[in-house]
């Protein structure tokens, strides 16, 4: 069960992630003017930020160890940071620098940190089978590590979801499947794409335990993940968790979200961080002062990472030809 120390840590980590995403958002847009050009600026390319989904990453990763694996989706920063991926190297990667996780070859949708067994992919649902294979390796080697596959509710309609869940259940592997249900797949609402309300019901197609967690509450998410992770570590096989969360910003930066209408205002009111902050304040776990210093510390760490990235050299053009083969 979640105790008060953990709650403060959860809060800190969520603030850290949000601070990170906000800073990236700022720097992403900073130099794309005058005409907004996606390829221009310090951070080029598509950018999928995770604001609103911090409770998922934080509640999940508080249950994970360094040797556990995560395969993340196109929207990966919250997961990477919560898992322990080095913020400096990750930021340098996103800025396309030679000091980045992948020397600037991967970018925001392709973050690889083998020391944390963290990876992500820009192709919907395709990280899910990869996590199954990591779990297979863990189980063959007899470690108690688990592999976690994270995907959106849109991804749960992709064939790879089905095949991965079936395999993991068939082979009773230590996998936790997390569906981040933020109601949207770009502009397509869940109701247009998914004929059932509770996606965790899909687990029964594989004889797999599951739960849907409402409320975007880090405490509840932690508890649900804990049950799943413990089951997996104990050899009890996989679990599917569908976690209802919220996408506070556009699908990608530059998305005007005209399709959201009123729902967007409601979503904004459901920002999980102020809500959690209020609870912790009320419970006396935080004070205005401690909040201030937590935020300041986050700012400091994030700005240091960004400064590191900006100060880092770009890769040499000819490095493009390296690393095709090992």
């Amino acid at each position, binding site marked *: 069960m979640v105790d008060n120390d953990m709650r403060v840590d959860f809060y800190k980590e969520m603030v850290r992630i949000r601070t990170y995403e906000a800073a990236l958002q700022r720097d992403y847009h900073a130099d794309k003017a005058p*005409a*907004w*050009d*996606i*390829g*221009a600026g310090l951070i*080029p*390319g*598509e950018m999928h930020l995770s604001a609103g989904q911090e409770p998922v990453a934080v509640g999940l990763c508080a249950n994970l160890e360094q040797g556990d694996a995560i395969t993340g989706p196109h929207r990966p920063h919250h997961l990477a940071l919560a898992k322990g991926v080095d913020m400096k190297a990750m930021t340098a*990667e996103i800025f*396309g*620098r030679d000091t980045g996780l*992948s020397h*600037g*070859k*991967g*970018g*925001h*949708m*392709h973050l690889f940190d083998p020391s944390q067994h963290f990876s992500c*992919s*820009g*192709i*919907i*649902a*395709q990280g899910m089978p990869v996590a199954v294979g990591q779990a297979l390796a863990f189980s063959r080697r007899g470690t108690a590590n688990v592999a976690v596959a994270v995907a959106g509710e*849109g*991804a749960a*309609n*992709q*064939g*790879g979801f089905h095949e991965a869940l079936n395999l993991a259940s068939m082979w009773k592997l230590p996998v936790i499947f997390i569906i981040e249900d933020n109601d949207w*797949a*770009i*502009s*397509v609402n869940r109701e*247009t*794409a*998914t004929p059932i309300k509770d996606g965790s019901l899909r687990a029964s197609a594989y004889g797999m335990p599951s739960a849907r967690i409402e409320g975007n509450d880090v405490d509840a998410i932690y508890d649900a993940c804990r049950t799943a992770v413990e089951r997996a570590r104990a050899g009890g096989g996989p679990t599917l968790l569908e976690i209802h969360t919220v996408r506070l910003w556009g699908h990608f930066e*530059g998305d005007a979200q*005209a*399709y959201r209408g009123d729902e967007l205002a409601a979503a904004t009111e459901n920002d999980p961080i102020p809500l959690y902050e209020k609870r912790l304040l009320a419970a006396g776990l935080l004070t205005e002062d401690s909040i201030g210093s937590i935020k300041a510390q986050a700012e400091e760490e994030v700005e240091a990472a960004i400064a590191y990235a900006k100060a880092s050299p*770009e*890769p*040499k*053009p*000819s*490095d*493009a*030809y390296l690393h*095709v083969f090992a």
Partner: protein
Amino acid sequence: MTAPVDVEAGARRVTTAKAISEAIAQEMRANPEVFVMGEDVGPYGGIFGSTGGLFEEFGATRVIDTPISETGFIGAGIGAAVEGMRPVVELMFVDFLGVCFDQIYNHMAKIHYESGGNVKVPMVLMMAVGGGYSDAAQHSQCLWATFAHMPGMKVVAPSNPYDAKGLMASAIKDDNPVIFMFHKGVMGLPWMAKNPRSIGAVPEEEYTVPIGKAAIPHPGTDVTVVSVSMSVQHCLDVAEKLEGTTSVEVIDLRSIVPLDREAILASVAKTGRLVIVDEDYRSFGLSGEIVATIADKDPSMLKVPVQRVAYPDIPVPYARVLEYEALPTRDKIEAAIAAAMKG
């Protein structure tokens, strides 16, 4: 081969994205069997604007937002086409072909042949291709050769709004499956750097551009430069720059299948020098096929080695400096032309 129709000054100029959605709209008005299906093709209007305005005009029964189930909805397109409808299906990025390729090459492309000609699959599968804006290894490829290597599909890739509209009209009218590849860089998107050639004069009335016919937007006599899609714009820029020093004949293939081999042979017979500019991967692809087209006939047509300005055989890197090292840029095209002229 025809150069794009001459359009008088003052004619309406639109983006390629608008030209495509206009062609679809006109076909939809003319034929109730035409419908559109894909991710974010509805109210959003297509991530790259290819279906802008269609949902507003035709509604949700004819402009269908799908779940992220490419095998499912491309297969559904095939089923509808088999029953005689004319679906225009969007695969958001060509890079996603791997989640649905079986439907594409084992079904869409082969049913007509396997049925001995008894079942037609009149379907357009359109998709965005190309890089240049740091979208990295899974969102920046061209891959036209991957489709072209598989028999049974026509493959088109326009370089400008005029051809895009005419080719889309032809594709929808065609009784065969047509892969319609629009490079993000030619769409004239407000949020991407663009060559002015991505916005151009386009007649409002319906017209077609024939599938399988190359265009020669810049005739010349010294060297043949064959290209397709976005790279054609760069080739034209270079050809114009070199006017007076080198007479460059630019061939815009427009279609990869059928490949207009005659146009290539005729030009190389004249120039004896060949530069191929291809944003798809270099090896086992378009550039090799073009060379082989000549060597099948008469290798002595080529006075000098062929210059292939193609994407090197590396995944697309993210950092701008790395990506531009690999892309077929104007500088590289110019250097290749110089090398061909020297050789």
